[in-house]
C-alpha cells in the first residue's frame, strides 16, 4: 500500500511517500514561495528520487483544512487532479490531526494551532500515547484567550504545533508553565503526519473518491462581529 501525502494548508509545503507504514521519503519547504508553483515540482522530484511511478500510488492523502483559503484549495485541487485520471481513492485529513501525528511523544497533550488572525486560532486537542493521537476536541476556531483558559485544566505537558505555536507560546507565557514549544522539525505540519492519519482512514474504510474530496473551512464568528462593529461605527467623515 503506497500513500502519496501532501500539505499546502499554510506557509510550509510538503509531500511524503509512505509504503506499508514505512516513510520512503519526504520533501519539506518553508519559504514564502507560492504553493501553486512549488508543489508539483516537489511531488515530481520526490517520486523520481524514490523511483516510484505515480501509477503505483494506491491512496492520495491531503490536508483539506483548516488553513489558508488559497493553500487548502491548492492542495485539494492538486490531489483531485492526481487521483482522478488514475481512479484512485483520496484521504481527507484534518491539518490539525496531521500535526498531532507528527509529534513523537508518548504522553501529554498535542495542542495544534494555526493562526486564523484577529487573535484567534484554528485548534484541536489530542492526547498523545506514542501510537495514534486520541482526539479530545473537534477542529474549531477559538480565541487564544479562551484556549488558554481551557488548557489551564490540563496538568500534563502540552505540546504546541503549527504556525500559531509561537503566537500561543507568547500569549501563554507566565500563565501556563507546562506548555512546550517543540523543535522546528516537528513543530509545523508535515505530509508525514498526513500520511499517518491517512493510514487510519484506510483501516477504518473512510476514503473518498476524487470528486467527493472538498476543502473544509472553519467559520470565524468573532471575526464577523469584529468586521460588523467597525462597519457600523467606524466610517471616516466623507
Amino acid at each position: 500500500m503506497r500513500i502519496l501525502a501532501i500539505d499546502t494548508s499554510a506557509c510550509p509545503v510538503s509531500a511524503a511517500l509512505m509504503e506499508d507504514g514505512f516513510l520512503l521519503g519526504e520533501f519539506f519547504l518553508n519559504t514564502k514561495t507560492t504553493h501553486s508553483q512549488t508543489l508539483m515540482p516537489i511531488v515530481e522530484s520526490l517520486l523520481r528520487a524514490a523511483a516510484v511511478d505515480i501509477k503505483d500510488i494506491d491512496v492520495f492523502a491531503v490536508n483539506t483544512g483548516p488553513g489558508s483559503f488559497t493553500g487548502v484549495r491548492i492542495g485539494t485541487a492538486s490531489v483531485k487532479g492526481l487521483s482522478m485520471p488514475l481512479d484512485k481513492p483520496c484521504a481527507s485529513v484534518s491539518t490539525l490531526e496531521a500535526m498531532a501525528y507528527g509529534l513523537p511523544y508518548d504522553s501529554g497533550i498535542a495542542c495544534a494551532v494555526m493562526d486564523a488572525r484577529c487573535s484567534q486560532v484554528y485548534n484541536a486537542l489530542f492526547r498523545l500515547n506514542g501510537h495514534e493521537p486520541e482526539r479530545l476536541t473537534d477542529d474549531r476556531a477559538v480565541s487564544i484567550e479562551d484556549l488558554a483558559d481551557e488548557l489551564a485544566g490540563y496538568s500534563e505537558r502540552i505540546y504546541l504545533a503549527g504556525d500559531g505555536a509561537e503566537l500561543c507560546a507568547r500569549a501563554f507565557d507566565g500563565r501556563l508553565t507546562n506548555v512546550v514549544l517543540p523543535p522546528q522539525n516537528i513543530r509545523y505540519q508535515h505530509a508525514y503526519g498526513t500520511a499517518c492519519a491517512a493510514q487510519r482512514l484506510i483501516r477504518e474504510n473512510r476514503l473518498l473518491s476524487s470528486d467527493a474530496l472538498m476543502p473544509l473551512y472553519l467559520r470565524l464568528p468573532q471575526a464577523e462581529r469584529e468586521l460588523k462593529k467597525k462597519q457600523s461605527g467606524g466610517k471616516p467623515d466623507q
Partner: protein
Amino acid sequence: MQRFLSSSPEETEQIAERLAKTLSGNEVIAMFGGLGAGKTAFTRGLARGLGAGDCVSSPTFALVNEYEGRFPIYHFDMYRVATYDDLYTTGFFDYLGSGIMVIEWSENIEGLLPDEKMTVTIRPVSEEQREITIEGAQTI
C-alpha cells in the same frame, strides 16, 4: 500625518508616485474615500512609481488585480465585500506580507485590517480639489 491638496487626477497620481519611492515591498496601504474620490488615480500613480507602467484598472469585479513592478502589487477593491467569508475567500490574508497591498474601499473591512499599515484618505474639497491625507508613511 501628511496632508496634500490636489487639483486634478494628474496631481493625485504624482503624489502617489512620490509615495511609491518610499515603499520597501510589503506594505499594506488602506485607502479611504467615496465614489469618484480618486482612489484608482492614486493607485495608478503608485503603480507607475513602482515601475509597473500604466497597468491599473479598477478591480471592482475581479476583487483583486495583480501588477508586476519593482515589487508585486496587489490591488484590492472591497466595495462588494460585506462579510468575513467574502474577505477570506478573496485570499486577502494569504497575500499579506507577499507584496504591496493597495486596498480601495477599506471602509468595508476596517475591523480586519492589520495593525501595521498606511492609510490614505481622499476627501473632496470641491468639484476638482481633493485633500489627501497619508498616515503611517515616511515623509514624501
